[in-house]
C-alpha cells in the first residue's frame, strides 16, 4: 500500500456550489415575496366579493340586465306570443306592490298585457334577490318602462316575503287583479284544469319507499330540492326523470346508490315518480360553491363559446335553462356539486345517456374551470317556474 502524503492545501468551496447557493437564495426570496403578494391580492379580492354580497352593490339596471333581460329583452319589449312586454305594461303602471308580488311569487297562468294574452310562467325570484335588490329592481323597471316613480320600502318587501313563502305562484292575471289591483283590466280566466291531483302511490314511493328500498325523499328532500351532490328534482320533466331511472337499470347511467334504488322500481313507478316531481315546487337552496368564475359561467350558459365548439346551455335547455320537456332537464337552481359532477361523468363515460350523445361532446370540451363556472352560475339562477302551467301548456 503506497504511503499517503497528507497535503495542507486549503480547498475552497467550488464556484458552482456558490453560484447554486446564491441562485437558490434569490429564488427563495422572490418566492417568499411573491407569495406575500398573491396572498394579499387574494385576500383583497375575497373581501371585495364579500363586501359586494353584503352591500348588494348591483344597482337596479344591473339587476335588470342579469335577471330579467334574458326573457323580457333589454328594451323590455318581451317576445311576441311568449314573453309579455314590460314597456307600458299595466302591471308596472299599477302600484309597486304588484311588481314586487310577482317577483316574489312568480306567475302560473294566463295573463293579458295590452291586447295580447300570454301563458305566463315566470319563476319566483324570492330565493335569489334580497329585499333591497327587489326594491332597486322594481324602482328601476317601473321608472324605465312605465314612468312611475313611487317608492317601495324594504319593509314592504320583507312583509310580503313572509306571505310569499306560504302561497305558490299567482294563478294567472285574474288572481293578481282580484287580490292586488283591480286597475289591471279584464284578465283571462284560469284554465279549469287546476293543479293535477297528487298521485298517492307516487307520494308513498317518494316519502316512504316501496319496502325494498329507501324513500326518494330521504336523500332528495321532502320538496325534491336536493342538496350538494344530490340533485334537485323538483320541476324536472316527468319523462326525463323516468328515463334516468330506466337508464340506471340498464347501466347507461351509473351510480351505485341510484342503480340499487332503480332496480326495485317498476316502469310504471318510474313514470309516477316523474310526474310527481315534475309538478313539485321548491325554492332554490343552491348556492355557487365551487369558486367558479361567474362571468365566464354566464357567458357559457347564455352564449356558449363557439371558438371551442361549445353551444350555449340555453339553446337546448330553454330560456333561463328552465328545461324543455321531454329530453332537456332544467338546469337552473341545480346544485353546483351535482352539475359539475355530471359534466365530469359525461367525459368519463359513467353517464352516457344523453340525446344523440350531445352532452358527451360538449362536456369533453369544457375544462375543469369551465365546469365549475357553469355549475356555479346555474346555481345562482331562480328555480323552474310553475310546472303545472307548463304541463297544461304542453297539453294544449
Amino acid at each position: 500500500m503506497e504511503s499517503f502524503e497528507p497535503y495542507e492545501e486549503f480547498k475552497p468551496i467550488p464556484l458552482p456550489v456558490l453560484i447554486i447557493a446564491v441562485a437558490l437564495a434569490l429564488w427563495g426570496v422572490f418566492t417568499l415575496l411573491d407569495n406575500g403578494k398573491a396572498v394579499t391580492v387574494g385576500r383583497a379580492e375575497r373581501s371585495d366579493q364579500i363586501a359586494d354580497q353584503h352591500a348588494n352593490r348591483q344597482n337596479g339596471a344591473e339587476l335588470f340586465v342579469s335577471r330579467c333581460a334574458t326573457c323580457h329583452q333589454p328594451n323590455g319589449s318581451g317576445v311576441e306570443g311568449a314573453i309579455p312586454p314590460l314597456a307600458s305594461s299595466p302591471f308596472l303602471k299599477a302600484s309597486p306592490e304588484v311588481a314586487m308580488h310577482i317577483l316574489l311569487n312568480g306567475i302560473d297562468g294566463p295573463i293579458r298585457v295590452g291586447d295580447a294574452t300570454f301563458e305566463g310562467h315566470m319563476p319566483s325570484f324570492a330565493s335569489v334577490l334580497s329585499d333591497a335588490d327587489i326594491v332597486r329592481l322594481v324602482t328601476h323597471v317601473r321608472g324605465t318602462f312605465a314612468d312611475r316613480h313611487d317608492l317601495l320600502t324594504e319593509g314592504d318587501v320583507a312583509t310580503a316575503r313572509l306571505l310569499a313563502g306560504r302561497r305558490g305562484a299567482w294563478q294567472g292575471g285574474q288572481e293578481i287583479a282580484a287580490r292586488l289591483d283591480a286597475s289591471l283590466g279584464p284578465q283571462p280566466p284560469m284554465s279549469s284544469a287546476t293543479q293535477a291531483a297528487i298521485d298517492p302511490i307516487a307520494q308513498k314511493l317518494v316519502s316512504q319507499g316501496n319496502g325494498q328500498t329507501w324513500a326518494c325523499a330521504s336523500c332528495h328532500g321532502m320538496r325534491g330540492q336536493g342538496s350538494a351532490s344530490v340533485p334537485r328534482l323538483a320541476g324536472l320533466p316527468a319523462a326525463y326523470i323516468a328515463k334516468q331511472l330506466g337508464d340506471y337499470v340498464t347501466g347507461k347511467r351509473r351510480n351505485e346508490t341510484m342503480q340499487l334504488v332503480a332496480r326495485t322500481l317498476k316502469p310504471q313507478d318510474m313514470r309516477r315518480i316523474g310526474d310527481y316531481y315534475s309538478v313539485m315546487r321548491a325554492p332554490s337552496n343552491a348556492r355557487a360553491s365551487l369558486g367558479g368564475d361567474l362571468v365566464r359561467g354566464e357567458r357559457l350558459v347564455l352564449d356558449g363559446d363557439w371558438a371551442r365548439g361549445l353551444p350555449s346551455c340555453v339553446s337546448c335547455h330553454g330560456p333561463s335553462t328552465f328545461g324543455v320537456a321531454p329530453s332537456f332537464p332544467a338546469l337552473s337552481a341545480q346544485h353546483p356539486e351535482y352539475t359539475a359532477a355530471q359534466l365530469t361523468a359525461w367525459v368519463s363515460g359513467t353517464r352516457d345517456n344523453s340525446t344523440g350523445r350531445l352532452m358527451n361532446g360538449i362536456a369533453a370540451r369544457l375544462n375543469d374551470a369551465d365546469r365549475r363556472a357553469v355549475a356555479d352560475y346555474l346555481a345562482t339562477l331562480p328555480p323552474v317556474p310553475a310546472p303545472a302551467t307548463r304541463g297544461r301548456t304542453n297539453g294544449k
Partner: protein
Amino acid sequence: MTLTIGLLLGLSFFASLLALAFLIWAVNNRQLTITQHDAYTIFTEGEAGHPDDATTEGSQDEGGAARAHHFDTERAGIDAISRPAVVTLISSGIAWLAIGSIFGLIASLKLHWPDWLVGEAWLTFGRVRTLHLNMVIYGWLSMTGIGVAMWVAPRIFHTALRYPKLPIIGAILWNVGVAAGAIAIASGWNDGQEWLEIPWQIDILIAIAGSFFVLPLLATAARRHVKHIYVTGWYYIAALCWFPILFFIANIPYIYSGVQEATVNWWFAHNVLGLWLTPLGVGAAYYFIPKIIGKPIYSYSLSLLGFWALALFYSQVGIHHLIGGPVPTWVVTLSIVHSVMMFVPVIAVAINHHVTVARNLWALKASVPLRFISLGAVMYTLASFQGSIEALRSVNSVTHFTQYTVAHAHLGAYGFVSFVMFGAVYHMLPRITGRSWPWPSMIPAHFWLVVVGFAIYFIGLTIGGVLQGFAMLDVARPFSDSVQVVLPYLEIRSLGGAVMVVGHLIFAAHFLAALIQRDAQAPAAQPHDTRSAVST
C-alpha cells in the same frame, strides 16, 4: 397576529441566508482557522493512507498487524470502554430491524391481499403499518445510530467514553419504551399522529432513556483530547441536542389541536428525518468513508457549509406535507423555500463524500462495508434532491398522498440511513469482537439482496405512485381507478420488500453468530482481549 409571526418566520429565512453568506465569506477568506489538516483528526499518526477494513479480502498483510500495534495503547483502550454500550445498542437495533421489517412486509402484503390476517384487531393494516414505522425508526435506526455514535465519538475525541454504564441503562429503558409503545399501538392506544403514535405517557420513558445517551456523549466531547472537533462530531452533538427538543415539544399533550396539531406533527415528523436520522447517517458516513479508504475527505470548507446549511434551513421543511391544507399560505411557502434551500447542504455533503470515494474506486471493490456506506451516501444525495423537488407545489399536488411519497421515505430512511448503518456495523463488529465475521460470504449476499430488493421496491413504487397521483387528479376518472392502477406496483413492492427482509434476516443471523462466537471464547480472552480487538 399573522403579520407578526409571518414576519418573524420570514425573517428567520433572511437571517439564515445572512448567516450562510457570512459563513461562505469567512471560509473563503480563511477567517475560520481551519485547514485541511483538521480533517486528519480521525487518523492517528501514520494511519492515513492504509485501508482500514477487517473485511477487506486479501489485504490482511503484516502491514495491518504493524499498524494495529501502533494503536494498541491509545485506540484499543478507548474501544474497550465503549464496547458493552455499543454491543447492547446495536444488537437491540438489529432485533428491532428483524421484527420491524417483518411487520413492514405484512403491511405491504395487506395492501393487495386485503382479506389476509383480518381476524385480530392488532393485525389490521392501520396497526401493522404503524408498528413497522415505529419499530424501524425508534428501534432500528435510532438505536443503531446511537450505537455507532457511541463507538465513533470516543475515537474522534481521542478519549474514552465517559459514564459508559449509562448508555446500557439507556438502551434497556429505550427498548422497554419502544416495546411498550409497540404493544400500546397494537392494542389500539396511540396518540393519533403519524410518527408520534407512541402514547406520550410512554414517550416520557423514551425521553429519560434518551438523556442517558446524550449525557455520556456530551461529557466525552467536553473532555476530548483534540482541540478540533471532526465534522462527524458536529453532526453527532447537534443531533443529540436537536432530537430531545423536537421530541419534547411535539409530545406535549393537550396544547395543540386541529391545524396547529397537524403543523406541529409534520414539523416534528420531517425533522426526525432531517435533524436526527440524517445527522446520524451523514456523521457516520463522514467518519467511515475516509476511515476505510485511508484518505481524508475532499474539502473541509464544504463540510462546514454542509453542516451549517442543514442546521439553518432544515427546521422549517416539514410543512410542505400540508400543501393544499387549511394552513396559512405563507407558512407553506416558507417551508417550500426552505426545502429547496436544502440543495445547498446536500450538494456540499455530496461533493465531499462522492469525490472522496470516486478518487478511490479501488476501495469499493475491496470493502463491502464501504460499498454499503458510499451507496448510502449516494442515496442521501438522491433522496434529498428528490425531497426538495417533491416540496414544490406543482410536483407535490401529483405525488403527495400517493405511494410515491412512501418510496421517497424509504429512499431516505432505508437507502440512505439503513445502508450506512449496515456498513458501519460490518466495519465495527470485527473490531468489537476481535474476530472476523464467521460467514464472510454472507456479507455480499446481504448487500446484493437489499440492493436488488430495494431497487425493485423503489422503482416499482415510484412509477405506481405517479400513476396513482395522475389518476386521483383526473376528475373524469373515478377514485377506484387510482386504486386499481397502483395494484400491480404494490405487488412489485411486496416482492422487493420480501427480498429486503431476507437480507435483514441473514444480517441478523450473521450478527448473532458473530456475537455467540465471541461469547464462547470470551471467558478466556476477557482480560486482555483489547489486543486481539485490533489484530484482526
